[in-house]
């Protein structure tokens, strides 16, 4: 695999926060590389630094040390607004708690990233993708009129609406029952397959992790090398 194939390369990224009791290292310097079409699971116990790593990879936060190259751009060299523009162009997000705008309908929530990107006639594209996630009948419903699974479908539709090259999902099934979780997982991988988007998941769900080509396992802020991984997982990858 050549460097050009990677759409995300993180080198020595670490995160230290300054607290009343002194500096606290949340993430020790780590390397991560993700290629196009890749599926990556970030797993680990609570407090191990999964969400922190996701935030850094997605450019939602900047590392205390090291550098991230996302879609060919060095995030450290970009301003807040330039990072926002980069996200608008090629990055999608799905969150555990959905993070839909309560005051917008399902359709309007999906249209939002298209409008932000200045796409003409965002309405049609958004209806299409809502139909693809099975919500053709619920386009005019507000988030508080939707079930948890439906909300997450809207969130996924929103994430894919902008045809991102990489999608970050923070425990996308964490708030859902197992059946609904399964449906959502299927949907994510299906869309990943159809659109050729790289998928980066933070999850507690081992079954979900096992479906990914690459698994990044975190413990106390460190990436555990593949050699020390449990056999079952190593065998899968």
């Amino acid at each position, binding site marked *: 695999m050549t460097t050009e194939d990677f759409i995300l390369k993180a080198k020595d990224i670490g995160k230290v926060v300054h607290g009343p009791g002194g500096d606290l290292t949340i993430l020790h310097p780590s390397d991560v590389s993700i290629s196009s079409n890749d599926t990556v699971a970030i797993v680990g116990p609570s407090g191990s630094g999964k*969400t922190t790593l*996701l*935030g850094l990879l997605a450019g*939602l*936060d900047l590392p205390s040390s090291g550098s991230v190259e996302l879609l060919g751009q060095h995030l450290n060299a970009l301003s*807040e*607004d330039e990072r*926002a*523009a*980069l*996200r*608008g*162009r090629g*990055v999608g*997000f799905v*969150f555990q*708690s959905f*993070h839909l*705008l*309560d*005051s*917008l309908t399902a359709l*309007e929530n999906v249209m*939002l*990233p298209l*409008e*932000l*990107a*200045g796409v003409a006639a965002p309405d049609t594209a958004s209806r299409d993708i809502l139909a693809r996630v099975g919500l053709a009948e619920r386009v005019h419903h507000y988030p508080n009129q939707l079930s948890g699974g439906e909300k997450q479908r809207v969130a996924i539709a*929103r994430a894919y609406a*902008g045809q991102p090259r990489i999608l970050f999902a*923070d425990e996308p099934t964490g708030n859902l029952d197992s059946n609904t979780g399964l449906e959502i997982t299927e949907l994510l991988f299906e869309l990943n397959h159809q659109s050729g988007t790289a998928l980066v998941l933070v999850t507690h769900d081992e079954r979900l992790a096992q479906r990914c080509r690459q698994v990044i396992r975190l413990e106390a802020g460190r990436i555990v090398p593949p050699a020390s991984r449990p056999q079952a997982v190593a065998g899968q990858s």
Partner: protein
Amino acid sequence: MKPIQFSLRQVRREWRSGELRALAFALAVSAAALTAVGAFAERVDSALTQGANELLAADLVIQSRRVPEQDWRGEAQERSLASARTLEFPTVSFAGDASLLVQVKGVSPGYPLRGTLELAEAPYGPATPALGTPAPDEAWVDPRVIAELQLTMGDTLELGDRVFRVTRTIALEPDAGGGVFGLAPRVMVDYDAVLAAGLLGDGARVQYRTLIAGDAESVSSFETWLEDRLERGQRIATLAESQQQIGRALDRARQFLMLAALTAVLLSGIAIVIAVRRFVERHLDSVAILRCLGCRQNQVLAAFALILLWLGLPAVLLGAGAGYLSQYLLVLSLGDLLPGDVPQASLTPVLTASGVSLLTLLGYGLPPLSRLRRVPPVRVLNRQLGTLSARHYLGDLTMVAFSLALIWWLSADLTLGAVMAGATLGAGLVLAAGAWLLIRGARRLARGRTLGWRYGVANLARRNRGVLLQVAGLGLGLTAIFLLGVVQRDLMSGWRNTLPDDAPNYFLINIQPAQVDAVQQQLARSGALTQGLFPIAVARLTQINGLEPSAALLDSPRAQRRIDGNVNISWAPKLTAGNTLTEGQWRDANVPGLQISLEQEWAASMRLGIGDTMAFTSGGQTVTGTVTSLREVDWDSFQPNFFISFTDVIDANLPHTFISSLYLPKEQFGQIAELVRTAPNVSVLDVGSILERVRTMIDRVSLTVQVVFVFTLLAGVVVLLAALSAGLSQRQHEGAVLRTLGGSGQQLRAALFSEFALIGAVAGVLAAAAALGAGWLLATEVFEMPYNPSWWLPAVGLAAGGLIIGVTGLLGSRSVLNTPPVVTLRQAG
């Protein structure tokens, strides 16, 4: 994202979801208050100015002791101004064998330009407004002329070479108060007729006046044009000069109204800050998502600022419209309390109020809103990572600077502006300090006692910045409300008291030295309240520091004009009531010869000070003295007061008379008539009617000010409500947690009441103290009147603040008690 589209779409939902209704309401109230205050003040102001100008019979008067060389009326006419002329002098009039000293007034057609001359068919008969001026052979006279010359209506009287037929008696003459001293009963005749009567030879003491009236702008530009062209001996009589009392009443009225307007603006500013802070806090998550989806910082700010603007615009316009309508109804309902013709309000107040309200929205809304720019997108993953820094001094400083600019601009009066700014800053600091102490002491206060109290009070310690804001917001709202109370109770009554009910209502003038004993005895018998008799000599100022006044005042033509002609001087062995020394000593043992005390403003206008010598000449006698003191004169006292007073009885045989002022109930006028019978040359001047007009004016102004304050009060209430609702969602969440953990409704209510009551008590007591301080500042620095602070106010503030805020807070937090915990928790999740 296109911010305009986004904001337009959002604003409908914001409105539907009710989030910004409070903000719109605050804005509408402030715009309504501003418009109402502005339009109402404009109308009342011009009505009052007009009413006061009635006492001048014009908007502007040019007066002189000589026949004017130039007729200003031509210029006035070119400027579309109305004009008229009068001349006035004392002379003896004859009717058969009887004779009487009268004050003749010649008036040209058009007189009076302002106010109404009222006439009666017979002495003291029913009065009707005069239609025109006296015909060339007609005389309209004071009823006293009829009585003293024993005339009947239609008889004739002689003035100089001419004979006039008495056809009417004068019931009310608008500018009669123009020259109080030396007034004999009035005989009013045609201007040209009196010129032809051959009475105006050398030495006649004639006062010529040219009256001008028209719209304010033309009058003002005419006045500017005139200033440099005045002839020697001519001067412009202004309201303040000729009617000190009325002039001061008007100034105070303007200041009171301005105070109300300013308070309303500041209150709306506070309401906006609180509302926008809530708006911002509610939208942190949405903004984080938008940022996450690629929205730029300025797009976020623009979109949300536009939401405020779309919501603010109609609110402001509706408010301004409502304000305009309400002032209209207000003026209508005040009816005849306002002088006859209340001019319509222009659209200026609506435009100004709308502009100022929108500016206020931006000035107070943008600094807290700009926090949205800095919402980190990582907040979508972890709310803790996305909290904003608690302090943002730049935003706070911007708002303080904006408030000061607003105060400075709106007050257009540096002293009032400085006092308001000082009071606002001071109150803010005091409240912040109080809130800090409350937060610090809360944990100690929370010990022991019931669970509700413990939890409620401990909340104060936890929420520190929120409590700080709440105490400051509530406190400033309460300060404004208390200040209105202070102004209403202490200042307004102080103002009214400057004119006590027993203020003199009669002046006795032209009492000869030989009659002093007789008059004093008669006064003592009548039981009249009087300060005694004051000598008055009419003299020429002949020397200043050994030089001719014209030479001594070479560099000040204005001062030269002022002393051209005669001045009134008096003398008294000691300082009389209503006078206060401001510089020097009444009698300085180190200064030889006679000593003089000057009224300070007169001295300043004449550029005279301690140590200057002045010489006065009258009837061939000259007296010289050295200025040893300056005095401040209480013109409100309506007592005889003098610019120039010698500090000891003058030995020289200077021709002089005595004057006195006295109070006697109107129905006892017979006592005065008795006195005049024993001393027929003494003239009685009824100032009671002038006083009556002044009192009516003060009452009228007080009422309008109170009405205007109602709007300010409303703005204060909006602030209180806004401050109370701040932090509601946090309380709801905590309440839900408490309920989930088994807390009873009773305990929750106790906790909420304790928290709000403590905040209210602290805000109340500090607000009362701040209001007293501001009242004192206003009384001493702006209104210059005595101040009797209501010391009990802080106690009331403590109790009322605690109770009212406690109960209102509890009522306002009903949703904390009524919403099922599961609903709240689900929403928070």
